[in-house]
């Protein structure tokens, strides 16, 4: 058990190290000298050679790549991701400031998606090949193919501008969260609906479902107790993966709704060539992705007793 845990932590560390290296490398390789850009922005005129040199020295640009990477990594491990070139604020505190908003959005979107998708998928499967199923299928198709930003603007147009029930932009209250969460959750809901439907269709054919019926269990329990839990096993992986994409989608949605968050932070930082922030955001996102996947594994164990627990020598060949 402890060994398994250690193995898990080990692989987690390896993934994070790779991600950090790639992030750091890519950002450093992008064309355009940040020293130039930043100084020009600050002074509103081209900086002198001397000023540029001083800036580079101050931020350690003169060192060779590997040295810079390791010192950055060393700091990062201690929670210091450097200082924003532009806002002269520690990146860590900027992240801490913006992360909760994004996390809130991602979780809300996932919740919206699950609440809509699971029942919809189950109902579609139970009423397989009826008008209910077909309507659900079409809705899912529309949901998948609708671009985030477009749906976002549409919702703003209808709900905020026409009906005036929700604020157009910003963050903080629940009403600020509703539209972005729906925007972001729709695509995910569509994917999950299809998946739940397919998975349920398969499980409903299983012999143990018939066996449950033959016990006299009522149909609603046959579906939700006996079939659904089995059907959810494959769904969990996709939800985990989707969560990563939700973080990506959050970037767009935050811009559309002008919500402060990692997305807006990242976009601003990219335009300003504010490398430390870009690196920080990417690193945090990757970390979230890896952690989610670990949580997915745990959820597996909870859902499907055949994994990890028990094991050894029971399944005779």
């Amino acid at each position, binding site marked *: 058990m402890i*060994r398994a845990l250690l193995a898990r932590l080990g692989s987690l560390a390896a993934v994070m190290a790779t991600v950090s290296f790639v992030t750091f490398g890519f950002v450093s390789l992008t064309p355009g000298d940040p020293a130039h850009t930043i100084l020009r922005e600050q002074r509103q005129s081209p900086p002198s050679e001397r000023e540029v040199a001083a800036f580079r020295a101050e931020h350690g640009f003169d060192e060779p790549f590997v040295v810079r990477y390791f010192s950055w990594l060393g700091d990062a491990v201690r929670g210091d991701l450097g200082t924003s070139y532009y806002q002269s604020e520690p990146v860590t505190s900027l992240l801490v400031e913006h992360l909760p908003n994004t996390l809130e959005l991602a979780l809300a979107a996932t919740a919206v998606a699950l609440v809509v998708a699971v029942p919809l998928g189950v109902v579609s499967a139970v009423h397989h090949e009826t008008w209910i199923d077909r309507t659900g299928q079409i809705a899912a198709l529309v949901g998948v193919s609708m671009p985030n930003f477009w749906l976002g603007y549409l919702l703003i147009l209808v709900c905020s501008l026409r009906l005036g029930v929700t604020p157009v932009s910003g963050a903080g209250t629940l009403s600020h969260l509703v539209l972005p969460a729906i925007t972001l959750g729709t695509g995910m809901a569509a994917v999950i609906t299809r998946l739940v439907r397919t998975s349920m269709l398969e499980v409903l054919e299983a*012999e143990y479902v018939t066996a449950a019926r033959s016990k006299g269990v009522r149909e609603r329990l046959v579906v939700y107790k006996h079939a659904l839990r089995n059907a959810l096993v494959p769904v969990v992986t996709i939800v985990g993966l989707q969560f990563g994409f939700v973080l990506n989608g959050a970037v767009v949605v935050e811009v559309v709704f002008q919500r402060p968050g990692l997305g807006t932070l990242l976009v601003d930082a990219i335009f300003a060539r504010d490398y430390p922030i870009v690196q920080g955001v990417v690193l945090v996102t990757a970390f979230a992705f890896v952690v989610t996947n670990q949580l997915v594994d745990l959820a597996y164990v909870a859902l499907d*007793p055949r994994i990890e627990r028990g094991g050894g*020598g029971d399944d*005779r060949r």
Partner: protein
Amino acid sequence: MNALLEIDDLHVRFRSRAGSEPVRAVDGASFRIEPGEIVGLVGESGSGKSVTARSIVRLEEPGEIVDGNIRFDGRELTTADDRTLRRLRGRELATVFQDPSTSLNPVYTVGEQIAEALRVRSDPDRQPFFRELILGASSRLRSRALRSDVLDLMETVGIPRPAERIDDYPHQFSGGMRQRVMLAIALARRPSVLIADEPTTALDTTTQAAILERLAALNEEREMSVLLISHDLDVVAELCDRLVVMYDGTVVERGPVDDLRSNPAHPYTKALLGCLPRRSKPGTRLPTIDGSPSDGSRPQNGCAFADRCSFAREDCYSTAQPTVSVGEDHTVACGVPDARESTLEGAAANPNPEPESTSEATGTATTADTALAVDGGADARTGERVRRDDDPTAGTPIVELEAVEKSFRGSDALLDRLFGTDERVPAVDGVSLALRPGETVGLVGESGCGKSTLARLIAGLEEPTVGAVRLRGTAVGGVDARTDDQRAEIGVVFQHPGTSLDPKRTVGESIAEPLIEAGWAATRREDRVAELLSLVDLPLEYADRFPRQLSGGQRQRVAIARALALEPSVLVLDEPTAALDVSTQATILNLLADLRDELGLACLFVSHDLDVVRHVADRVAVMYLGRLVEVGRTERTLSNPTHPYTATLLASLPGDRDDPVPTAVADRDALAGDPPSPTDPPAGCAFHPRCPVATEECRRREPPLESVGDGTLGPRSRCLYAPEWIEAGADPPSDVDASDPGPDDE
């Protein structure tokens, strides 16, 4: 007398795609079950027996009851509403399904699944939604009272140490134990009728015997009626009071079990009894049933069996056949007196002039000249095969196993592998065995004993951990390490042709696969495929069909053809007929016997069915926990075993025997439990925990595999008391001296 359950003229159709005729799965079945009675419902796949059984509890999906009545205790079930059905399923009519590996829900503990049945029984109408969901989510059965009831039930069905197992999940149980759990779930409802749909077909013969015995005992104790469905007449016959034989959706014969077995009247019943290997002389050709198996597309009127019946007359095809009474409570749906009165042998010796090649052809089959020719030859070879027990030591072995050991990793974790801390689970432990040209060795044992691994080792699909597999004297590794010639020497046939054939390839492509790998030119390949198809009695057009268009028996023929593609000298057969109906099994066994004689093949025949092995094998090797416990000539070993394990296996065979096992050690209950885990084999004789005659000595001393009796030539046994068993047995056969190959087998 008022029947408890009465099925009257039941018609069930399968819904099918628009346009095509609906399949008539059940076409006018009628029978009844009295209180406390065990009725056997017998028929092959496609006979409609399972659909009938499921229709009783109204689980006929995807079928539809279109006509007829099902009455339980005077209530009509065909029109019952959901609520009534729930009550009946929860309290009166319990069902056990065929395959316990799929009929238990994998995500709930067995305790919860049994408890659920108890809760439903106590109140079928309520079943609060959220309470049930929450109870399911817990991995431990909490309610104290319920727990003790569940434990009682587990005890009743014979699950050892129930208190330790109640919170385990289904995958932690063996097949036999899972079926016991299913039985406990059924008993939780205290039903008045138990419907058991092929409850033992997926199990070993030993487990089968134990489960059937348990059923009989429960029937006695609880006065519960049982409807026992099976494709094997002999299996159910022992238990049942009455039998109902179904063919193609209709009941062709029914009657009291003794009368029906001693005086079968319907030609189909006779054929069904005749094609069982245990009823034929070993080494002879098995009688087969001609014509295609039922597929629900027969003509409106007339006898369903007419296409395959050797007594069929003109009017059999056109007019409905009367149901004739041939004894007390014994009726048969056949209007031809000659057919009814012919003896079993007579029926078998009345060979249909039609070629066997069409024996499994589906409706669309056309005549095949190539197959005809071969078949003519095949049918002529009816005589008894000369058994190769004259001088088995003569030939040089083709395949030799030298103290082969194979173990598998207990876990797949990366770190375990890095640190080498993983447990090794031994599957095969020090086995030495030789296979000579033209010889068939039967390898028997319960599931998990390592017999399949041994077969895979010979085929090169696994490599031995220790020891060597020799092919014509040269040690060979896995398939990848073998030369083309070495690979060509061994052909393999597995149990499930469905999974070993690629569904997306045509039969021809599948058969040609090994030829392509061996680098044959296209034209030569085509000729060879044609040759192989005719060798296995399949028409040439089958080359263009896909596996799903074939019946199970035909698929197995294709698998055999592929195994023979490169003219091997050895055929490894891993349970080749275990998934087939008895009549199909008979045709496949005949085919294998012909091929073996014609091509001089050496065969390793792996099977859990001793009757089949007795029929085909020259020698048997019995395996227990990865080791050989007895090796010897078939006839001798299976009539006078020298190891208690072999004796117990024999005792668990179904059916009445003319010659019951003569040893004193036979004890059916001995194998009721599971074999011990191979990770942790018992000390001393590995069989001692289950051995009915174990002594203190057995716990301490590990017996070697030693020759018994006549010096180096006798059978070999891994039992301390082997010489005693040989004496306890009947008079030894006179030809005892010409028995077993000696030293090179260990």
